[in-house]
C-alpha cells in the first residue's frame, strides 16, 4: 500500500507566552494549552492532500511521548489521517532518539514518504527529519514549500536563504515542511467524533529496541534579557527626530 508516515509532536501552543520556571528547571507547562507543533500540522495537511490527489492510499500519523500525546494524535485523525501510532514514553526524547524510533516505524510501515515539520517550536532543534533520512539512507528535502509527486520521485521546492531551490528526490524520501507549504484545514465536530473510532495503536519505546539515552543535559533555563518600555512621541515630527538622534534614518 502506498503510505505516508507523518510524525507529530505535542508542544506548548504557539499563542502561549512561554515562561521560564523560577527555579530554572524548565518552562511552565502546567495548565498551559498544548497543540500539535504548527509545522507538523502542515505535514499532516500535506500528506492528506497527496492522498486526496490519489497519489497515496493511507496516512499514518505517529508521535513519541507520554499518554497525553494521544490528544494530538486524535486531532490529526480528525483532520483526516487514517490511523495513529503512539510510541509511549515518559522520558525526554532527543532528536537523534526520535529519529531512531521513526526509523523503526519506517521499517514497519514501509512508507513512500515520511513528512515531518521542519522544527518543533519547543526545542527549535530542526534535526529529526534530517537524522531520519541519514539513518534510513534515503533522500531528504527539508524546508519544503511545494511538493509534487511524479511516479517514483518527488520534486520539492525548498525555502533556502538564497531563494527557492528545487530538488528531485527518488522515493522513498523524507520531507520537512516550511510554513508556506499549505494552510492546514480546520477540524469540524463530526470529524472529531469520527476520529474517536479510528485505530490508534500504542507501542512501547523499549519494545521497539530504542533506548531513550540522555546525551544533552539541560542544566539551566533562563529568561532572555527583557526589553524595556521606551519613550512615547507625540507626532511624526518627534518620531523622525528620535530616529535621527539614534542615527537610524
Amino acid at each position, binding site marked *: 500500500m502506498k503510505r505516508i508516515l507523518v510524525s507529530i509532536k505535542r508542544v506548548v501552543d504557539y499563542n502561549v507566552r512561554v515562561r521560564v520556571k523560577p527555579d530554572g528547571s524548565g518552562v511552565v507547562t502546567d495548565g498551559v494549552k498544548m497543540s500539535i507543533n504548527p509545522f507538523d500540522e502542515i505535514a499532516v495537511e500535506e500528506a492528506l492532500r497527496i492522498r486526496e490527489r490519489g497519489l497515496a492510499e493511507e496516512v499514518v500519523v505517529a508521535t513519541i511521548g507520554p499518554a497525553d500525546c494521544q490528544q494530538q494524535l486524535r486531532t490529526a485523525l480528525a483532520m483526516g489521517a487514517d490511523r495513529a501510532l503512539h510510541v509511549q514514553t515518559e522520558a525526554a526524547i532527543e532528536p537523534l532518539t526520535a529519529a531512531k524510533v521513526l526509523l523503526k516505524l519506517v521499517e514497519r510501515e514501509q512508507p513512500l514518504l515520511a513528512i515531518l515539520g521542519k522544527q518543533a517550536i519547543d526545542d527549535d532543534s530542526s534535526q529529526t527529519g534530517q537524522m531520519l533520512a541519514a539513518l534510513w539512507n534515503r533522500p531528504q528535502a527539508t524546508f519544503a514549500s511545494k511538493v509534487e509527486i511524479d511516479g517514483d520521485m518527488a520534486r520539492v521546492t525548498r525555502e533556502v536563504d538564497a531563494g527557492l531551490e528545487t530538488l528531485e528526490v527518488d522515493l522513498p524520501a523524507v520531507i520537512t515542511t516550511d510554513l508556506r507549504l499549505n494552510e492546514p484545514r480546520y477540524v469540524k465536530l463530526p470529524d472529531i467524533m469520527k476520529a474517536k473510532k479510528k485505530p490508534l495503536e500504542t507501542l512501547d519505546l523499549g519494545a521497539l529496541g530504542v533506548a531513550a539515552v540522555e546525551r544533552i543535559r539541560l542544566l539551566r533555563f533562563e529568561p532572555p534579557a527583557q*526589553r524595556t518600555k521606551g*519613550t512615547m512621541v507625540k507626532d511624526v515630527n518627534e518620531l523622525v527626530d528620535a530616529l*535621527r538622534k539614534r542615527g537610524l534614518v
Partner: protein
Amino acid sequence: MPNKILLIAEHDGARLNLATAKCVTCARSIPEAEITIAVFAADGAAVAAEAAALSGVAQVLRIDHPAHAQPLAATIAPQAAKLAVDYGYVLGPSTTFGKDLMPRIAALLDAPQLSDVMAVESATRFRRPMYAGNAIVTAEVPTGARLVATVRTASFEAAGTGGSAVISTVSVDADLPSHTRFVSLSAAKSDRPDLQTAARVISGGRALGSAENFQMLYRLADRLGAAVGASRAAVDAGYAANDMQVGQTGKIIAPELYMAFGISGAIQHLTGIKDARTIVAVNKDPEAPIFEVADIGLVGDLFQVVPELEKLLSQSQ
C-alpha cells in the same frame, strides 16, 4: 590536548559565506581550539584561500568533486562524517545550508547535535535559545564525546583575516548517492532587501485593511531601503504573502530598525522581533501590547502617519 574542530564551510562556489567567519569566532571560544575548515566544492581554490586567511584557522581541507557544485546534504554528509572521525567537534552555521546538513552528519556519527549555539561556556557547556528565544538554556554534553553543532551566526562577530592556514587537497572514500538531484535555484527576485537579513524592516498588521493599502508600506520601505514584513493576522487576512510573516511561526528577525504599523503585538509576533536593535510602533490603540516592547512609540492613525513619515524622510534626504 587540543580540541580538534572541523568546520564545514558555506559558500556559493566562488566566495566564502560570511556565516563561516562567524562560526570561526564561535569555534575559537572553545578552549584549546584547533580549527580545520572543510571546503566541499567543484573547484574550491578561491573559497579555500579565503578560508585559510581567516584568523585562528589551522588548516583548510579542499574536497573537490563535480558533485559538489551544489551543496546537497545527502552528498556532503557521508564525506564529512568520514572526515569527522579525527575531530571532537563538527560545526556549521545555523543557516538553511547548515540546518539541512549538520543533523545528517550527526546521525551518521551517532553524535548528539546542539542547534543555534549562541555562547560557549566551556568545552562541554553551551548556551542556546529554545521556545523561539523565550528561554535560554545551558546545555552540557559528555566529556570526550563527539559533538555536532550549528552556530547562531547573529551571536558572533566575523573572524578577521590575516591568517595563513595550510591548504591541503584531500579525497574522501565515501559512496555518493544519486537519489537526490539538484534541479534549480531561483533567487528571490525582489529588489528589496531580504527580510531575514535586512538592517531595516517595515511591517504591517491587520489594521492596514487590504493588500492595496500595503503599497503604502512598500513605498516607505523603498525610501528607507528596508524589507517589508507582516503580522500573522495580516497574512491570514490575505493582505501580505506568507513569506512576509514575522513571528514565531514565520521569520525570526534581528534588524537594526523594526517599524511596526498597525500591529497590536501578539506574543507570537513579539517573539519574532525581540532581538531587533530598535523597535518603533505606531498604533491607534494606546493599550496595544506592542508599546510594552517598543523603544519609540506613537499613538496615531497609520493612514496619516505613514504618508507624513514618507514626506518628512524624503525632505531630509
